[in-house]
């Protein structure tokens, strides 16, 4: 009961995270969460009430309750008991099928504007965002134009990670040697918290980034500022980035070597190295490895 109360208080007063979506994908996902929850509560709440009611009414000390020691089967109840869950899941099945297709991360967002392309690489332990059309890159900071769709192509430099901006919508895994895709849109300008949600090692907790959704003109200004950044991202710069580092402050690159993302994704640039050694003595490389 305390738990239920807390939940109600929370739902009434709290906002943020996925409960306050700022984009169409997030809004649609969250709507499905609420709908599915509502459908199930229709069954779950009466079940909980019935549990407590039956337990109380049929307690040993209650002389008014009818004791039925031999009643072990009822066709009607059996029908009900299978039918109710089946009906619920039939409905949910529809939600699942339609929702999964409509909200497939790979599905483009219908919009007047052409999507902004961002290529994402998860490293140990920071995020690299390459803007191939604009020719710049950014680390641990994602700036996107508000009100316009963004199409992400994602890969990983080392281990599996997962790209997630709770207020904008779905997450997707990043894996070395493969490219996954995601389509998101921020409706309003604002700052949104982003994080890796697949545990990736000691620096995992610091692997968050901010998404700045800005009006188009501000976006253009940011691009200009980025083009005046000190360094350019070429292969050697990328290899330097591959070295393990944590809690990296956001910075930008003024230029990106063309085809860098493709080289990373197809392993032309090999995956990043790991740590020098964990505790427990010298780490032994098996003979003939790689």
């Amino acid at each position, binding site marked *: 009961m305390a738990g239920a109360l807390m939940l109600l208080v929370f739902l009434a007063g709290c906002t943020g995270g996925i409960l306050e979506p700022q984009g169409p994908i997030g809004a649609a996902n969250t709507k499905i969460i609420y709908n599915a929850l509502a459908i199930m509560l229709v069954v779950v709440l009466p079940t909980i009430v019935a549990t407590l009611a039956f337990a109380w009414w049929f307690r040993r000390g209650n002389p008014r309750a009818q004791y039925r020691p031999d009643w072990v089967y009822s066709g009607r109840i059996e029908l009900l008991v299978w039918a109710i869950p089946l009906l619920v899941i039939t409905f949910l099945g529809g939600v699942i099928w339609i929702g999964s297709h409509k909200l497939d991360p790979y599905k483009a967002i219908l919009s007047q504007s052409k999507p902004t392309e961002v290529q994402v690489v998860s490293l140990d332990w920071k995020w690299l965002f390459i803007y191939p059309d604009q020719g710049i890159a950014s680390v641990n900071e994602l700036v996107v134009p508000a009100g316009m769709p963004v199409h992400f192509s994602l890969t990983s430099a080392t281990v599996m990670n997962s790209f997630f901006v709770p207020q904008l919508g779905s997450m997707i895994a990043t894996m070395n040697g493969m490219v996954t895709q995601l389509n998101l849109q921020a409706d309003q300008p604002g700052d949104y918290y982003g994080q890796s949600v697949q545990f990736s090692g000691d620096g995992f907790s610091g692997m968050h980034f901010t998404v700045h959704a800005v009006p188009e003109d501000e976006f253009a200004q940011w691009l200009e500022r980025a083009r005046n950044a000190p360094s350019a991202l070429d292969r050697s710069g990328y290899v330097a980035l591959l070295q393990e580092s944590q809690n990296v402050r956001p910075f930008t690159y003024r230029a990106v070597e063309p085809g860098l993302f493709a080289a990373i994704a197809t392993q032309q640039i090999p995956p990043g190295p790991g740590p020098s050694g964990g505790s427990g003595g010298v780490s032994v490389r*098996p003979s*003939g*490895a*790689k």
Partner: protein
Amino acid sequence: MSTTETLPFTTAPSIDPYKLGHDGRRRRPDDGGAGRDYSTGHGEGGPASKRVIVAYGFWIFLLSDIVMFSAFFAAHAVLRSATAGGPSGHELFDPRSVAIETSCLLLSSFTCGLSAVAASVRSQLWTQLSLLITGILGLAFLAFEARDFMTMIAQGAGPQRSAFLSSFFSVVGLHGMHVSAGLLWLGTMMAQVFVKGFRAVIMRRLLCFNLFWHVLDIIWIALFTIVYLMGEGL
């Protein structure tokens, strides 16, 4: 797995367990009044006989082992084309060697079956002989397989070369490990049969060994088909 009546060496030891060296029908100390004839373990008759229980349990173990092999087969299906620029099965497999290995194993299954027949008529000589030949054929199988592995490794096509080769060496190697463990068991069984004769417990173990050896053969057929034959075609 028929009922207890047809097999003489099925019942539990008698009231005096320290009398050794003879078997045959023993009066079960306690069967709950169900009667021997109905103890198939299908609920109505009470607990099954020891032979049925042991064989059934061993079958369940074999099924679990097949599941483990299935996981490796599944991995092989996924990694079949992951040659990472290295050699593929077509370039590496020696069909002659594989044919010899297959014949050795199939023949060894036959001699293993012969040993079961010999044991059922309590012939120490023929049981030991057929078990010995089974063992020799098994060793021959392993020798050829080891030679294949060595050749491949010498060519630079060891399991560290690519995911396909890792998977190949693992699934074939897992089977080889089972054969090796089987040979160890075989040696132990030969010693036990020699020292203890054809007691009920020994007969149950021989039955289990037979099942194990035949199932290894079946898995080899699957392996041979999926890994070698289909790998050739790739």
